[in-house]
């Protein structure tokens, strides 16, 4: 794995991010940095604000206060499409799939190929062909691409969500527990895809609960606690056990 140099430039930074939902403080002045070309792990207990952070970094949620910098410049991510246009893409914890729509329709949801001109017609056949390539790239076998996603297994659903994000040349990929709903074999497929993207130069922030996967995938990690970064470190030299010990130690 071509790990990022410790001095590679900062790509994405969050500073003093606060996000409240009513009386719940999900993020409490969190600050973090993503270096260009690295795979960064976000660890921490349930409900500490990891997903909320990624949703802010992808423009899905607006922070109450705090700033986000991309390439050192302050940006306000207006919405998901805006973030995507800047090269930031995400796989959500719930995968953001619509059960009733087909695999092709889900892969291209909000990224449809259309004809140009005033009346934009969906180019269904083109999308179908492209979907076949994408699915092959993800390396998963799916029965029929016209099948509704509601009929798929957990691993197959994850594959559809991954196929959705690998079609664009992203700079930053945010992954919210991509391995949560998949079996051992499929997990390896997902890990391979992430490694490939990383090799192509994509920077990744990934939320993981399995510390073995953290060791496998990440170069650096943040431990989130109570809406803040409680600990930061390099994965090098860590084993799963020592990582768990580190996480547990932050609770004291």
């Amino acid at each position, binding site marked *: 794995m071509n790990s990022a140099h410790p001095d590679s430039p900062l790509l994405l930074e969050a500073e003093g991010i606060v996000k409240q939902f009513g009386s719940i403080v999900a993020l409490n002045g969190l600050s973090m940095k993503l270096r260009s070309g690295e795979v960064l792990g976000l660890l921490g207990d349930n409900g500490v604000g990891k997903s909320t952070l990624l949703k802010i970094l992808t423009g*899905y949620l607006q922070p109450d206060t705090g700033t986000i910098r991309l390439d050192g410049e302050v940006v306000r991510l207006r*919405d*998901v*499409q805006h973030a*995507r246009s800047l090269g930031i893409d995400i796989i*959500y914890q*719930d*995968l*953001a*799939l*619509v*059960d*009733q*729509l087909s695999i092709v*329709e889900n892969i291209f*949801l*909000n990224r*449809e190929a*259309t004809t140009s001109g005033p*009346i*934009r*017609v*969906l180019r*269904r056949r083109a999308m179908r062909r492209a979907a076949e390539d994408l699915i092959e790239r993800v390396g*998963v*076998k*799916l*029965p*029929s691409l016209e*099948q*509704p996603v*509601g*009929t*798929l*297994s957990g*691993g*197959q659903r994850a594959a559809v969500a991954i196929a959705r994000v690998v079609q664009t040349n992203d700079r930053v990929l945010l992954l919210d527990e991509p391995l949560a709903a998949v079996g051992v*074999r*499929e997990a390896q497929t997902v890990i391979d895809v992430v490694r490939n993207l990383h090799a192509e130069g994509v920077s990744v922030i990934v939320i993981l609960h399995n510390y073995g996967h953290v060791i496998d995938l990440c170069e650096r990690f943040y431990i989130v606690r109570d809406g803040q970064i409680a600990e930061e470190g390099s994965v090098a030299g860590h084993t799963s056990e020592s990582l768990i010990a580190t996480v547990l130690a932050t609770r004291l």
Partner: protein
Amino acid sequence: MPEGLRPARLGSRFTVGSRLLQSRHAKRFEEFLFRYREVTLLAAGLCLGAYFQLMTGKLLSNADLLNLSQIMAPIAMLACPTVLLIASGEIDLSIGQTFALAPFLVHFGQQAGIPLLLADVLAIAAVSVVGAINGVVTVYLGVPSFVTTLGTFFGVNGLTLIISSGEPVGAPGTGLYATIFGQNWSLIIWAVAALALFHFILKHMRWGLYCVAIGGNYEASREAGIKVDRIKIGNFIILAAVSGFAGILDAVTVNITDPLAGGSAIMFSAISAVVIGGTALAGGFGTVVGAFIGAGVLALLQDGLTLQGINANAFDLILGIAILSVMIMNVTLSRHLLGRRRA
């Protein structure tokens, strides 16, 4: 990786006749029925038509087919855009009232000296505002659309009664205008145009795809970056505009502008047509073709029962049974075929 779930796997609890259903042909047939609900409905409609023709011998006359088309067309025109709205998980009860209001606005516009076509456009714009209110109150204030549009249902009806003093007036336009905008067969031609337009939007444009996506999984659609609010409000506005236009045409057809035209009768007919046609009331699936055929079946029931001299009470009873049967069939088949019931 496990083989993909076969969609046609039958649940073990369906033991009655299961041996029959296990045959490949039966499975295929079941899948066919579900996938092409429109065809099933069309077949039912044709049987119904044949029955009325045999019983009365009058249905297939030019005069009665015209009558049938004029019953069907306004229902169909309202049903087609309603498919988009219902597929996106919302409902609009006020469409019968904007239908009644628009021709009055045309009438008063004309009286104020505005040219007829311009008065039409202004009236449609005005009732679109009702759609915008429906949409904004539902989307931004979080009032369920059933309740929002129940409010505008009464409000707009009241408005129509006030400006008309409850009295009908003449129909707008004569001559070429009337020939194009409502007389004789022109009404059903407009309905076919609505069918083509909204079918195209639903199946071949982003807008339609997003309606289905939003109705299927609102949260996922937002996460994917779809502008869900815009689509929902847009649907309400489009629907109100089309219902107003249909009301203007219908006034020409029946040659009177009646404050009691439209109302809940046509609203329920349109929504029934949509649901019978196969669109999921909970959102996530829509078929404009099905709704159009549904409108035809409803019109045929009404017309045929009238030809037979059966009174309106029996019509409602039969309609109720028809809706229930079709819905039970839809729900059962989709459960079977999509394996929704994971025991």
